[in-house]
């Protein structure tokens, strides 16, 4: 079913088609041409990374990021086995895929030491830690430090949150991570600047690699709208796990002014309430949004799709979108997977000026609107919808920027970083062995 309750008329192939990826080619060679298989096996680089993170079916942005990153890197390393160490709550039973080789129980401190020992005793070459304070146990996720302290293999931390005004404990944790990791990856230059200025991280360790985006070649929005049963509509959308920090109410309140100039506009709010939020306050935020929609009499023009969308569904909705909006309320937000995805699909994007959006949407790649301002949203949506040239120029600029951040490119950046670190680590080990001899 579609956002407007109609049956999907036709599936449009908007996400990447099935690949004859390197890994598949090599697998076939094993049975078809053993000599060539052996030649490739001897020639190609091997590296065995482990990713420490939340992981699907856990529903959170970092879990999805980890899955995308690990599978994208693995496509270039057909002779290496990637693995995941999943961080989970003790009482949760997650039906993980086989790539998850070990589980850390979030609030169990010993579990972090056991995971480090598992890695130390394995053939794993490098650890990629996905960091956000909330996904690890202890105060501000400080158990992650126990893990890193006990680790004998090199580690790289990807930082999904870099606070400009951290508490003393949050600052201490990130600084300790900086000491214990060989590199810290942030997704925008501003994140690196904060790491250096606020946390005194060694500049040699702070690296910028963009947030990955799906590989999507552009299609006409009209063809996708048709498939979604929205052929006569203009579409605005916001997607992601819904919570109060998203600021969706400001877009809803902007709708009357938008509808004055664009009467067939539909605003799609795609995604379920964040599971962590649902636990504490149920659907109260979404109910508040629904009440506002009813009060404004715009229920035909704002539609929810209350579930976790698959990547292909998400891409289809994004491709059908005329204006994508992240009306988020937290100025310090340094990363947004949903904004990155919209950029990757080459959309005209509006956003409040949180740190990540300011940088990613610079140079005409999008437009910034004031925080908590329905007027600013309405004014800019109407401007984009009125000015075809402006809309196209924003879409083109976003798309070109997004191609560089396609997962297949981001994976190469990570793999390059992993190789450099592992090589340096091995030479140091060798130097130590030589020194002892």
């Amino acid at each position, binding site marked *: 079913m579609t956002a407007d309750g109609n049956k999907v008329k036709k599936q449009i192939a908007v996400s990447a088609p099935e690949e004859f990826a390197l890994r598949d080619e090599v697998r076939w060679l094993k049975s078809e041409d053993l000599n060539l298989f052996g030649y490739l096996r001897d020639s190609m680089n091997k590296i065995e990374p482990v990713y420490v993170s939340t992981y699907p079916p856990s529903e959170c942005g970092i879990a999805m990021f980890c899955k995308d990153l690990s599978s994208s890197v693995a*496509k*270039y390393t057909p002779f290496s086995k990637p693995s995941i160490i999943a961080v989970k709550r003790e009482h949760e039973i997650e039906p993980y895929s086989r790539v998850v080789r070990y589980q850390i129980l979030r609030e169990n401190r010993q579990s972090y030491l056991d995971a480090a020992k598992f890695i130390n005793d394995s053939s794993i070459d490098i650890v990629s830690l996905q960091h956000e304070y909330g996904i690890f146990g202890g105060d501000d996720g400080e158990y992650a430090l126990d893990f890193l302290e006990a680790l004998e293999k090199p580690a790289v931390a990807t930082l999904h949150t870099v606070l400009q005004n951290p508490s003393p404990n949050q600052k201490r944790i990130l600084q300790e991570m900086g000491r214990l990791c060989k590199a810290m990856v942030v997704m925008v230059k501003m994140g690196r600047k904060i790491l250096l200025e606020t946390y005194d991280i060694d500049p040699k360790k702070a690296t910028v690699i963009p947030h990955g985006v799906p590989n999507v070649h552009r299609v006409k929005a009209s063809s996708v709208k048709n498939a979604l049963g929205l052929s006569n509509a203009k579409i605005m959308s916001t997607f992601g796990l819904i919570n109060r920090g998203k600021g969706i109410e400001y877009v809803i309140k902007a709708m009357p002014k938008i509808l004055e100039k664009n009467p067939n506009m539909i605003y799609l709010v795609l995604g379920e309430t964040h599971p962590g939020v649902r636990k504490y306050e149920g659907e109260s935020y979404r109910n508040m949004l629904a009440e506002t929609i009813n009060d404004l009499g715009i229920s035909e023009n704002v539609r929810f799709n209350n579930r976790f969308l698959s990547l292909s569904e998400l891409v289809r909705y994004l491709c059908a979108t005329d204006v994508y909006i992240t009306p988020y309320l937290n100025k310090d937000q340094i990363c947004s997977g949903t904004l990155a995805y919209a950029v990757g699909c080459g959309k005209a994007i509006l956003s409040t000026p949180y740190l990540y959006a300011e940088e990613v949407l610079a140079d005409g790649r999008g437009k910034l609107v004031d925080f908590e301002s329905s007027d600013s949203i309405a004014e800019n949506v109407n401007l984009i919808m009125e000015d075809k040239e402006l809309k196209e120029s924003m879409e083109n600029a976003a798309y070109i920027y997004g191609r560089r951040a396609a997962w297949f490119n981001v994976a190469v950046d990570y793999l390059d970083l992993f190789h450099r670190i592992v090589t340096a680590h091995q030479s140091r080990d060798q130097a130590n062995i030589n020194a002892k001899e």
Partner: protein
Amino acid sequence: MEMDLQINVRKHEEIPVIELSGEVDAYTSARFREIMLDIIDSDGVKLVISMNDVEYIDSSGLGALVGGLKRVSERDGKIVIICDKPQVKKVFEITGLEKVFPIYGTEEEAIAAVRS
């Protein structure tokens, strides 16, 4: 704005040269693979692929090349690459495939290498 893959095929002293321009990725690599295998079957097993105008190559593009390599290996052939784009060369270096597909800076060097 066009970022898909353009494929041009010509000959340099009887050696087929496939010129790629754009992106060799999951959307386009099947077409590249098909054209390359056709050329190998009809025009010979010594082949030069020019990637100077390639913006990006992903693992499916590398997969297509390995598919081509399998076809030429069956008949003692060779595939060499021309490329001066650091971003593209990095993909070969990072995977180790630069040892499998020799990369040259100029067409003359590539032709000489594929003949040897």
